[in-house]
């Protein structure tokens, strides 16, 4: 019960606040669900012109903006 002499915040409510923020942050950092398919498609396209070694797609969030950064590594000659 919340009495005035019980000022310390209970640990369960601290846990709830922390979890909310942690899960929200986890979700922001998550990949888009289509990431693997996109990766495969990009490889298909680029492969027509040059050999691909690896491809890395990242979702980046900066405030309100979201960016998709695609890093294509090509095979050395």
């Amino acid at each position: 019960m919340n009495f005035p002499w019980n000022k310390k915040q209970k640990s369960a409510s601290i846990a709830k606040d922390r979890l909310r923020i942690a899960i929200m942050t986890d979700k922001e950092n998550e990949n888009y669900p289509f990431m693997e398919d996109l990766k495969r498609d990009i490889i298909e396209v680029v492969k027509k012109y040059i050999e691909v070694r690896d491809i890395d797609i990242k979702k980046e969030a900066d405030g309100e903006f979201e960016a998709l950064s695609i890093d294509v590594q090509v095979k050395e000659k």
Partner: protein
Amino acid sequence: MIIAIISGKGGVGKTTATANIGLGIALNQRKCVVVDFDIGQRNLDMILGLENRVVYDMVQVMDGEASLKQALIKSKANENLYFLAASQTKDKSVLDSNKIKKLVDDLSEEFEFVLLDAPAGIESGYEHTIEFADTAIVIVNPEVSSIRDSDRAIGILDSKSQKVKDGGEVDKYLVINRIIPEMVESGDMLSSEDILEILNIKLLGKVAEDKGVIEASNQGTPIILDSKSMAGAAYFRIASRLCGNNIPIQEPTTTRGLVGKIKGIFS
């Protein structure tokens, strides 16, 4: 019904839940099979007390080295319950989508309920186990790391399951395990309402922390067989709900007396 029993991290009581829910379904006179998908970490056999009867495992069935009939083990406790063991020697990379689909299809021809004890959500092999499930039961402890990891496991379920890819939706239910009522009452453990609000899925049941669970696993007799156990009764209610019976959710209560309750009010 193909039900994957999942969790975020390990050690939350997923295997215990699988064994007890499976046996509970069987006690409701419905045919049920429990399959241990935690390859390399075989444990369900111990909880069910069937470790000495394992001859063939599910990987051997999937590879055609043994028939289902040869590999299925009948429970000692109930004739409606069967068990299929995980492979102990191979690792999780042996799992292959097509083979899993065939195994699960074959099992659902014979059994009304197919329960898959999945590896923890953060482990490899998890994605394969959930692939062909139409229902998932998430086991969570009222504790931050378990809840956070569960959210991630649910996220993977929502993007990788075949039912979702086909435009459907996997039914998701939550079982909150290891609740300590005294701590919830004093505000030092997340309440079920808090957890449901964070994870946003339907509640299937609440199970209190129960020392009897360890004694039960020591003996290989699932706690649901102990008529005096609160946790056992909670698992029976969960299984009955899955069988379509409308049983209200019961709040685990403290067992302390009047003096303790008065103390609790002022703490």
